[in-house]
């Protein structure tokens, strides 16, 4: 827990300093190229970037406990509500993609471990090699080309209902699925090779029960871990996919903010992401404990 807190503090500082040191002057981005120094100065005062770095940092940090992430330079709105408006869409996309990827990976991975070399196993390996090899944005573009432009089944851009979710979710799922599938298949194979599986077999426990109950229970541990790792792919994939589909989520906002040097928004997004990461990892630790009694003892 303490480690996680330290982690978040380090992220806050790193993001803050990195933004201030490397990024250009946000005032210049918001004003015409030929703006005078006075105009630039007013903008800087308005943004708060005229103050020394330490003061800016203090302003920023002191607002955090109140949930105040500052005000967007570009929209002149509280950053938190700006992000919050877009969270549901992004969550929806990420969650749908994760479920799609997991369901596919579970079915194909278990079948592949049970019957290695079978058609379903080979299909799974091919699909995951494809997902690993193709850039997510290109998969998005191809989906648009086929299903929107040529077939007209789904809308190409924006968010107008569940149909807008289908193509982006598939694109993100394809980015996440390969890692899941590999881990599930490998850990299932490993579990099926354990002595206690042979024991269960030797005592006449049915194959279905052995696979779905004995082995899967043991394979569930690495699976939980992989979901944690998925998070990175998931968020990365979501950002790119949102751009391709012009999907109104947090990823879009992040890219727009990068281009506009809208520090407070970028800061807030990275910090919130880190918090989500920490939270998910906490859940994973708890899940581990629930799944493996050996860990319960050690904790």
């Amino acid at each position, binding site marked *: 827990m303490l*480690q996680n807190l*330290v*982690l978040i503090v*380090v*992220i806050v500082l*790193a993001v803050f300093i*990195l*933004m201030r040191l*490397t*990024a*250009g002057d946000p005032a210049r981005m918001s004003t015409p190229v030929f703006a005078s120094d006075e105009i630039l100065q007013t903008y800087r005062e308005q943004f708060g970037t005229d103050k020394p770095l330490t003061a800016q940092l203090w302003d920023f940090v002191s607002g955090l406990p109140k949930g105040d992430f500052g005000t967007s330079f570009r929209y002149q709105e509280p950053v938190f509500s700006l992000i919050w408006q877009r969270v549901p869409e992004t969550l929806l996309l990420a969650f749908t993609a994760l479920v799609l990827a997991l369901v596919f990976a579970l079915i194909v991975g278990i079948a592949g471990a049970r019957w290695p070399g079978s058609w379903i196993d080979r299909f799974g*390996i091919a699909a995951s*090699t*494809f997902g*690993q*090899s*193709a*850039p*997510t*944005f*290109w998969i998005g*573009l*191809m989906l*648009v*080309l086929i299903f929107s*432009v040529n077939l007209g089944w789904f809308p*190409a851009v924006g968010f107008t209902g569940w149909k807008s979710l289908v193509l982006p979710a598939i694109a993100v799922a394809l980015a996440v699925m390969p890692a899941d599938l590999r881990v599930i298949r490998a850990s299932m194979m490993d579990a099926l090779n354990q002595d206690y599986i*042979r024991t269960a077999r030797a005592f006449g426990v049915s194959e279905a029960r052995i696979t779905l109950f004995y082995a899967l229970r043991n394979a569930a541990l690495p699976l939980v871990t992989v979901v944690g*790792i998925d998070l*990175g792919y998931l*968020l*990365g994939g979501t*950002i*790119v996919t949102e*751009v*391709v589909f012009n999907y109104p989520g947090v990823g879009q906002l*992040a*890219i727009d903010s*990068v*281009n506009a*040097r809208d520090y407070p928004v*970028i800061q807030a*997004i*990275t910090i919130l*992401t*880190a918090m989500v*990461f*920490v939270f998910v990892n906490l859940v994973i630790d708890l899940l581990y404990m629930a799944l493996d009694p050996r860990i319960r003892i050690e904790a």
Partner: protein
Amino acid sequence: MASTALPLTGDPGASPAMEDAPQELSWWRDFLGRNGARTFLIGLFLFTLIAGAALAAPLITEHDPSRNNITARLRPPFWNKDGGGSTEFVLGTDGLGRDMLSRMLFGMRVSLVLAVAGLLLSMALGVTIGLISGLVGGRIDMILMRLVDLQLAFPYIVLAMAIVAATKTSIGILIILLGLAGWVYFARVVRGVVLQEMQKDYVKAAQVLGASRWRIGLRYVLPNVMPAIAIIATLQLPGLIIFEATLSFLGLGIQPPTPSLGGMMLDGSQYIASAWWVITLPGLAILLVTMSLNIMSDGLRQLLDPRLQTV
């Protein structure tokens, strides 16, 4: 001792063939007979083909990849004769009438050079950090691994975008970005293997023989880390190619007029309804090269994983 279900574990060295036959002569046949050897060779062959074509781009195509030709805009590939395709522009032209094939070849060249440079950087960084972390342990290990977690904590692409947007894109910056993208995987895996190996008796034996920590690390442990490094490298390279393309697609990578695969697709996305090939073909090119690397990596993993070699 007790035997296991597999009868072959008993005494692997005992066959007279092993004792007397000159092993060097048959190593190639032996190699081909191993799990994953064929897969690896197929991947290697494909990759060499593509990389060779990209590196020899000026010899293959006569078109200047950057020369606009307004009279020959959006020509389809040669097989679409009705749409105006011809063998002059084998794979058609883009929105500015530039030859797709030569742009793809030159773009691939840039991609590969960048990705390989990034890979070498991340390998050097990651292996060093992983080794230090695993060998030294303690506080230093904890700090380094926190650093790894930190990088994994948020999508790297946001950070990369911020840096690129702030510092003006240059080849150097891009290589550094790519290098920083991959080191965590090397560091993690190398550290893991080192820690695992350090538990083994041969390391303890070396300690008892008086070997220093660094001697043990470099002479005894490092050779066992090599397979893992090779596998990660073949896995990371396609990842870096895709990452570079993604940055270029977002307009943050290689800047025009230098051709890049990601940039081609960014340009092409405005013609998605009229000229499918402008976005499709560069993606396919990436797919081919990354797929060949992933196949290679698969084969390598089977080749180098001793557990898979029993059958």
